[in-house]
């Protein structure tokens, strides 16, 4: 197997793994407050936020990529902010890709977390409060352990989804090895230049990984309860 995976392919694999890891970690941590708010809030604005969070589920990736091309560029809101702060442009960089991936995989992490928090139920929380636990204490020692499986599901989904990112990267990536040439882009490249052997290799790797990820998720959730005893 090692003989067939060229250094070029390895670079793309490592890049994709790094991108997926960073994106998933950021989404799990930063997404927790948002998911919690969505699960517990009763404000009417919740509806709108839920719709925005779910947008990347139905939005064609090229649409997201198109807007990112504008916003990450030097004339765009985010791009010019980044430029004045760091002196570099955001487009065609790994950092730009992370931002794109955060948006792309947002619902895949937020929604499982939200569902998990929703099924926790008030009685559990109230029991903790009545025993004198403060909000932080409750969250760390009651909510998180119970939401373990939800976090696992959200993490695996977010990771696998980011690993396969293509349309967005095609629009804003620039196909730079080591920076933005992720697995799916390199795979596309191989197909376009009729390197079917390497295309098969990358393709089956992604397919195998995606399938295992899904298998894992379904195994975790084979009982209907998500993390509650």
């Amino acid at each position, binding site marked *: 197997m090692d003989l067939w995976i060229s250094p070029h392919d390895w670079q793309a694999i490592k890049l994709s793994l790094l991108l997926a890891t960073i994106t998933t970690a950021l989404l799990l941590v930063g997404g927790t407050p948002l998911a919690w708010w969505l699960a517990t809030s009763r404000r009417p604005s919740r509806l709108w936020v839920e719709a925005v969070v779910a947008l990347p589920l139905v939005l064609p990736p090229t649409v997201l990529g198109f807007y990112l091309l504008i916003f990450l560029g030097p004339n765009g809101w985010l791009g010019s902010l980044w430029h004045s702060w760091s002196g570099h442009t955001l487009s065609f960089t790994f950092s730009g890709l992370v931002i794109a991936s955060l948006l792309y995989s947002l619902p895949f992490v937020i929604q499982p977390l939200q569902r998990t928090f929703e099924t926790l139920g008030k009685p559990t929380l109230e029991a903790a409060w009545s025993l004198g636990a403060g909000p932080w204490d409750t969250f760390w020692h009651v909510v998180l352990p119970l939401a373990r499986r939800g976090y696992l599901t959200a993490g695996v989904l977010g990771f696998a989804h980011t690993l396969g990112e293509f349309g967005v990267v095609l629009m804003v990536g620039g196909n730079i090895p080591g920076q933005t040439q992720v697995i799916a882009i390199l795979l596309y490249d191989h197909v*376009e230049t009729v390197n079917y052997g390497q295309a098969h290799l990358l393709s089956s790797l992604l397919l195998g990984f995606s399938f295992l990820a899904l298998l894992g998720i379904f195994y975790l959730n084979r009982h209907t309860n998500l993390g509650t005893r």
Partner: protein
Amino acid sequence: MGSPSPCWLMIGLTLLLWPGIAWSGETIHVAVAANFKPLFVSLANRFEQESGHTVLISSASSGKLFAQLQQGAPFQLFLSADMARPRQLQQEGLAVADSLFPYAIGRLILWSPDPKRFADGTQPLTDGLLNKIALGNPRSVPYGQAAQETLHSLGLTQKYADRLVFAEDVGQVLAFVLSGNADAGFLSLAQIIDRQGNPRPGSFWTVPPSLHHVLQQGAVRIKQPKMAEPTLELVRFLRAPTTQAILQQQGYHAPPAMPSEQP
């Protein structure tokens, strides 16, 4: 409610089949390299009016179209940005023998929407002043390959090694540059000339042709069971002096005449 009266069914059917009925001509599928597409659209319009045939255009990089044709894509005519790919299709027996002909010579430019970027007397490329340069992926875009050759000829490959951005075709190169994400891009001259012959606002450096391979753009007829005659009509239209005159106004040079002139 009973079923619709036959009258309505007839009207409905007629409306559905109308496109087929109205056009007595045939439909030719053409695969066009991205750099030639904008011009070809207007050329095809004229051809359609003159001949009564319909031209369906699919556009992508030459490499992409080549790969699709090898997998049996249903095109009758392939307008590539190089000669090598159409030639190989002939060798593989996918294209009609001896149907290869050059239809244009392309010009490579380095373009920026900033009118001051390539103002007279400045050499931002050789001076290393460009932060990000967009070019087509050399593996599948002939103009991208020419761009890479240019950088190599100028000894700038190392200097710009981590400042290059690769696009799927020259159309995406233009998108990267127009959106400001790249400072400049290697394009075909034709892309920045509008149908009236005026250049887009901006500035560019015309790459001396000696720095890269000759961008001789070749066309070839694909072996298909149908449309042989209409495709030949289109080929004759492309090679006609009137069309050639238009090409030269729109950023291309006239191709050399082929030694064996096969209709």
